[in-house]
């Protein structure tokens, strides 16, 4: 990897290992790098410990989505889902455990996979991407058991409401659709760009981030990042963030959001931006919180840079991991 390639690298996805001691990150060249958080966070960390312990090419195209199950790391890029055993990865073996491809209708271009989530209720993998459809794969058998059709453009993001067993999906068409995972039928469809308080026609209508917490939903993208009350299906607060947001999460009483612009935004539920923490990449694609392991409780963000910023205290950048 030459300096020019590093200069044009983007990090699209991240995932912490089940033990919380490792971080996997995927970039636009189809590479996955595994970093050791325990080494990078240890008091005697050096420059070398901020480099990946393992770096391998997983896919032909960019790695848009990474997801960790209890044992495996799932990665998805150009239409294909691959699984890598964490145990093997830690031993630096880079042989895929398995690879699956949803059945696509188009043949001219392979649709990308932008989002993956696990439905823990029936242990299935929910995949959304370039073909506008949501594919559900049974993790036991590895077969794709159903397809949810409804979006008119590609799907950016997915979210799962555990209590109700509902799947939320946001897409390029500007709609947030809510599906019942048991019946695989659409429940609701919110066209966010039609709500004046959050619409931003100068950007567009796509929804690129979704997050839920009990009755609450966060969504943003072309329209402003907004907090919705799902039972009333109305936006309760709109956050005045200038750029398009790509990832937002609930964290305790805060909402953290990343997107265009070199900073992580801390927002309060009331609709105010509490802080914007500067970071290295000029725009951010992904934000991940490592909550599984109290010892390595960090937030990492990646974007249009080969560096992944690590926040130990969420109010300032501690250091950067580097591809």
């Amino acid at each position, binding site marked *: 990897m030459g*300096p020019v390639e590093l*200069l*044009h690298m983007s990090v699209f996805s991240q995932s912490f290992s089940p033990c919380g001691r490792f971080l996997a990150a995927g970039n636009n060249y189809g590479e996955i790098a595994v970093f050791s958080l325990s080494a990078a966070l240890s008091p005697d960390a050096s420059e070398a410990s901020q480099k990946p312990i393992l770096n391998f090419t997983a896919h032909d195209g960019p790695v*848009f989505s990474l997801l960790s199950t209890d044992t495996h790391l799932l990665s998805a890029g150009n239409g294909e889902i691959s699984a890598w055993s964490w145990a093997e990865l830690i031993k630096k073996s880079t042989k895929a455990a398995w690879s699956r491809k949803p059945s696509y209708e188009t043949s001219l*271009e392979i649709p990308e996979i*932008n989002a993956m989530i696990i439905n823990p209720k029936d242990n299935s993998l929910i995949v959304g991407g370039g073909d506008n459809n949501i594919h559900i794969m049974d993790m036991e058998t590895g077969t794709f058991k159903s397809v949810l059709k409804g979006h008119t453009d590609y799907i950016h993001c997915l979210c799962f409401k555990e209590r109700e067993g509902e799947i939320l999906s946001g897409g390029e068409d500007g709609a947030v659709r809510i599906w019942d995972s048991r019946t695989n039928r659409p429940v609701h469809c919110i066209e966010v760009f039609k709500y004046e308080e959050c619409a931003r026609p100068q950007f*567009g209508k796509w929804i690129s981030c979704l997050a839920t917490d009990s009755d609450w939903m966060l969504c943003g993208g072309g329209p402003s990042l907004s907090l919705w009350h799902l039972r009333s299906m109305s936006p309760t607060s709109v956050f005045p963030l200038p750029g398009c947001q790509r990832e937002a999460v609930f964290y305790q009483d805060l909402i953290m959001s990343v997107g*265009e612009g070199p900073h992580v935004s801390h927002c309060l539920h009331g609709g105010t931006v509490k802080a914007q923490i500067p970071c290295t990449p*000029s725009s951010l694609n992904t934000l991940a919180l490592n909550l599984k392991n109290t010892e390595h409780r960090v937030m990492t963000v990646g974007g249009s840079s080969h560096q992944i910023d690590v926040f130990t205290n969420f109010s300032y950048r501690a250091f950067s991991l580097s591809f």
Partner: protein
Amino acid sequence: MSSDAVKKRKPKVIRNEAVTPEPKRGRAEGDQLSAVSSHVKFRKVRLRQVQVSYPAGPHLIGQRKLFTAKNQVPDVHVYNEEVELEGRDPQQDYMLYKDTCAALAKLMAEIQELKSGGAKSAEIEERRRQCSVHFITLKKLNRLAHMRLKKGRDQTHEAKQRVDVLHLQLQNLLYEVMHLQKEIGKCLEFKSQHEEIELVSEGEFFQDAPAEISRPHVTRDDQHQLTLARLDWELEQRKRLAEQYKMSLTRKEKIQKAIEQKREYLSSLQPGLQNIMQASVPVQEYLSMPFEQMQKQAEVARHLPPPLYVLMVQTGAYGQACDKNLSVSISGDVDEAKALSRPPEDSQDDESDSDAEEEQQNTKRRRATVGVQLDDKRKEMLRRHPLSLCVDLKCKDGSVLHLFFYYLMNLNILTVKTKVSTTTDLSGAVSAGELLNTESLLNCLYASDHGKETPNPANRYQFDKVGITTFGDYVSDLGHPYVWVQKLGGLQFSSDGAQSELAGSALSASHMERTMKLLRGRLQARLALHKQFSSLEHSIIPVSSECQHLFPAKVVSSLTRWTMMSHQEFTELGFVQHVLTAGLAHETDLFFMAVVERGTARLLAAVVVNPRYPEVTPLFSLSLHWKGERSGRTDDNLRAMESEVNVFRSELQGPRPGLQLLTNQIQRLCVCLDVYLETESQVCDGSEGPKEFPREKMCLRTARGPSRLKPFKYNHPQGFFSHR
């Protein structure tokens, strides 16, 4: 009367004793005795008378002896006292003398007595007569003693004479003995010449020599004969060899004569050949086979300093073996070089030391001249060898890269200057000025070889002495001391860590091929760029037919400006900061600004062209002025465009060695801008009214992935755009 007698006798005795004091006494007594006896015989008659009254005894014996002596020589009636002497016994004479003396003393005493007694004179007379007889006897005895003495003397003398003769004889004999011994010694020391002759060993001798020379029956036992035989054999052999030698000599003479003849013949050929050579020169030139020139060059090359010589030989060798379009020539003052190589090099250190001393002395008085002195010393230190090497690299299109190699004698480094001559006129492009700049043409031929600092670590100390801060101040004068130049000249400096252990020609040879290829590649790249720049300046992007498939047929965006920038100007641009922080822009690079326009959209592209282009891909940084300013930092799609242009060099470089890389990159930039603008209006729902950029490009999807990238990848045969 008695006292008188004593008085009379005394002087006699004293006189006798004075002659021979000790032995005289006995002899005198003996003489006296014999004299007495002879006296007795002479006056026989008278004695007879006397004898009657005198007591006998010894007297009688004496008489008898006298008679016998007389009887023995009866015929010779000559009185011979000497004969009588022989017959007498000295002992008896002595006794007689004693008796006589005693008788005399007695008579004297009687006379005394008579005289005192007043006796008669007759008695006294009687007594006196007796005394006289006694005196006669004494006289005789005295005579005899004298004779005896004389005789004794004679005998002694005779004996002495004999002893002398014998002694002389002895001396002679001794001398003879000595002489003989010397002779023997000489003989023993004698070295025969034959000992120096190296003879064949005995075994070989017996084996080789014929029987009549070796005579084994004799020589087996007799060492002498053996030696002789061996010498004979040696002589025989030597004679034979001498004969051979003579024959060889004659043969040699003959051959020499033949050689002489042939030489004459050859020298008679020379003018003819020269004529032919003269005549062949145009042919040689026509066929480009410069034999003669090479000869002359070899002559001059002997005066080259070693590094240049290595360079010349290796370059020549490489040119002969692999590269026909490479030519080497030597230029400079040969005579000066000759003069330089003759005297032993006086070391720089001494000179500068003495200079330093001088300087110290002078500083107090003439501070103003110190600067001049330092200047002189600097000049001396930076002096280059009078001879230089000119290597001409010809390219297929007829352009030539002239490389002038110089050797700085005191710094022990090689420097190079360049010149490019082309067949076509290159004055067209303004922005191309730097491309063939002799200063920077060969920069970074190998990565980070800037040729500004001297590669010889020892020079640092030399510079300190004369106050040169950096060699970089002199490169425009002296040429660039690139590391590859040193290597081509076989110079190896240990400053850059562990290296191969090659040195001299081997080092040069190991770098020759690669360097020559790089040089040629560099020239070709620069010429290609030059050509491309002149069309870029006319807003034409030259895309060769080989690369046509990389781009769609219709490209609406067009290049409107192509200008050169300085490093300073580049660093002041806002949208290139990421390149600067990544350390991808160096002062040695070339910087350009390209402007691509379509409608109201204006795309600025700052381009960094590494000197090692096309090996190192030019780096584009973009800034789009359209509905506000966006750059690669703020717009993911522009960033994607940058990466499309910068990263995928393998698609864009075209036919090897990738000389169309830059123009293809610019062309792709135009295509990407088309896609960007056309899809942007599609995505943006907010804009009202007719679209400025109608969608002409066929895209499967206008956005993809989380960052909603546009489809910048062109698929050739189908002609649609897709995502990476």
